[in-house]
């Protein structure tokens, strides 16, 4: 039995993030959520996740700003970006900043899980 992967979901759309969290839990992931960059950093201080799924479009710092913070503090934690803009530009910029990969909203749950498994260490 594999160890449960601990995933942190960061998105300002509460409805979206909670539903997605529930679905991932159903599939055997250990999920924490945050609705902004600050919340994410606090959560990571409390318990370090194996992986972060981060929305690019967020108020405040914005997804890419949060990504930079995560990468500066926890360089080894892989980050998967979600973008709502239908543009590869954000995704490519994110990967340049150290993101593992990106997905476009609305996402397909199976695809997300595949990417999480690819990214997860070990």
């Amino acid at each position, binding site marked *: 039995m594999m160890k449960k992967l601990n995933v942190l979901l960061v998105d300002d759309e509460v409805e979206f993030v909670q539903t997605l969290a529930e*679905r991932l839990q*159903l599939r055997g992931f250990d999920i924490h959520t945050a609705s902004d960059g600050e919340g994410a950093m606090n959560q990571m201080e409390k318990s370090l996740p194996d992986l972060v799924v981060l929305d690019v479009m967020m108020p405040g710092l914005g997804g890419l700003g949060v990504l930079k913070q995560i990468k500066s503090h926890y360089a080894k934690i892989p980050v998967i970006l979600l973008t709502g*803009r*239908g*543009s590869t530009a954000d995704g*490519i910029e994110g990967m340049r900043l150290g993101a593992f990969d990106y997905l476009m909203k609305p996402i397909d749950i199976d695809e997300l899980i595949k990417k999480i498994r690819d990214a997860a260490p070990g």
Partner: protein
Amino acid sequence: MANANWYQNLFRSILNPDAENQSADRYRALRRNIVILMMLVTILPLTLMAIINHYQYRSSLKAEIVNPMRALSSKTKHSFELFLEEKLSNVRFITSVYSVKELADEKNLARIFRILKKEFGGFVDLGLIACNGIQTSYAGPYDLLAKDYSEQSWYHEAKVKGIHISDVFMGYRKFPHIAIAVQLVDEACDHWVLRATIDTHLFDNLIASMQLDAESDAFLINDKGDFQTNSKFYGKVLETCPFSPPPGNYGTSVAEEKDPQGREIISVYSHFNTLGYTLVMIKPQSVILKSWFTLKSEMFFIFTISTVAIFLVIFKLTGILIRNTREADERRELAFRELEHSQKLSSIGRLAAGVAHEINNPLAIINEKAGLMKDLVERAGPFDHKEKFLGLTGSIQSSVERCKTITHRLLGFARRMEVQFEVLNVNDVLKEVLGFLEKEYLYRSIDIRLQLADNLPHISSDVGQLQQVFLNIVSNALAAVEDNGTVSITTWDRNAETVGISVQDNGCGMSEETQKHIFEPFFTTKKGYGTGLGLAITYGIVKKLGGELKVESQAGRGTTFYVFLLKETLSKTSE
């Protein structure tokens, strides 16, 4: 006043054609106005010059004819004077050399007369008249001895003035002659008169020596207006002349008048200095006008030729001018339309991107909620309508999937594309694209005709973008044709900067109205299943790559799409 308004309007309409109606008539009006104006400024001076020349040539031609007439007339007058002077001298010489007594001797006088006739000629007779007026001595062909002249006026005048030259008269002899009388003096009486008569046919010789043409006439008249010589057209000697010399009895004068037959004539009058004679020379105007008519017809010919030439040039030039103006107007209008079109596309694009982005988030929520619902139903034990629920969530998710396709394509249409330029062969890209579509066209037995230029130069562009462009255009062509239809794909080296690709089908074609809108997003003819984004995206990509996308179509005959691509990358893409 009305006239001034008319040409003001003309000028206004030339300078500001928009003021007139905007229809195609505008060009016709413009053309008409330019032609009229140009005609005015060319034909008018030409006509004016022709008229001025007309009169100038006429007067100078007249002068050219009149001046020799004057010269000839005064020369002839001079000859007449010399002739009369000579005759007078002859008689005076006799009176000086011989005494009255010698002249009174009949034999002597006859001898003198013989010598006179022989040496000088023209003399008819010679007589000496005594102081009482009786001819005392006479030599000549007539029997005039002892004739009494005492009552004759010329005799008295000779006695008073010393000499007298008479007008032409018939006298006793019944043929025209003139008499010259010179006074003599002796001891007994101081008014003897020696009288000689002279045949005036010598006058005719002088006039004949003028060598006038058949139309012209010359004659002598005296101060009473009687003919002194015969006239060709106007009468005999001593008849009254129909012309009267202009007043002022000196020199030569010229008059234009009508003769009794109604002919237009030019007459030259030369007055004799000492005698009351006038030499009249007549030339009909028709002689002058003959050369004038020749010149006039030549001038008229040149005038006509140049007028026709001006007409032709003006018409041709104006035609070219109007055509160019019209083409420039049309090009400008087209450019405006294109600009308008691309602005419309870009603003629609921005709007679409905004909407798509806003919709994407709720869509993601719907997707997750439906997904969770499905997860829960799957994991629950059997219950009523379980299968139905699974079906419902599945169809929600597939609808979300459709929406996602639309929003992503909308965003793709609007977003700024990062173009990855590389050197590529357009033919290869086309073949690759045809590979994707092979199944469809083989299945439908569509004839794909490839006419790819072998030596097509490689161009610098983006493979992925071009694939999308060609895929879209070729798919459209395949959709347009019936089964067994034909799609021709051609590539060629268009010019120094661009290569051309055309995709031609013999399918259903499009109406003019459809052609106007095909590059606009959401415009579709595929009712029900088209997004209306394909060609809009294609258009955007081609523009972004610095190329051009054109369409030609006729409803029922087929459609041709042209793509023109730059060989070299633009140094900087727009936006």
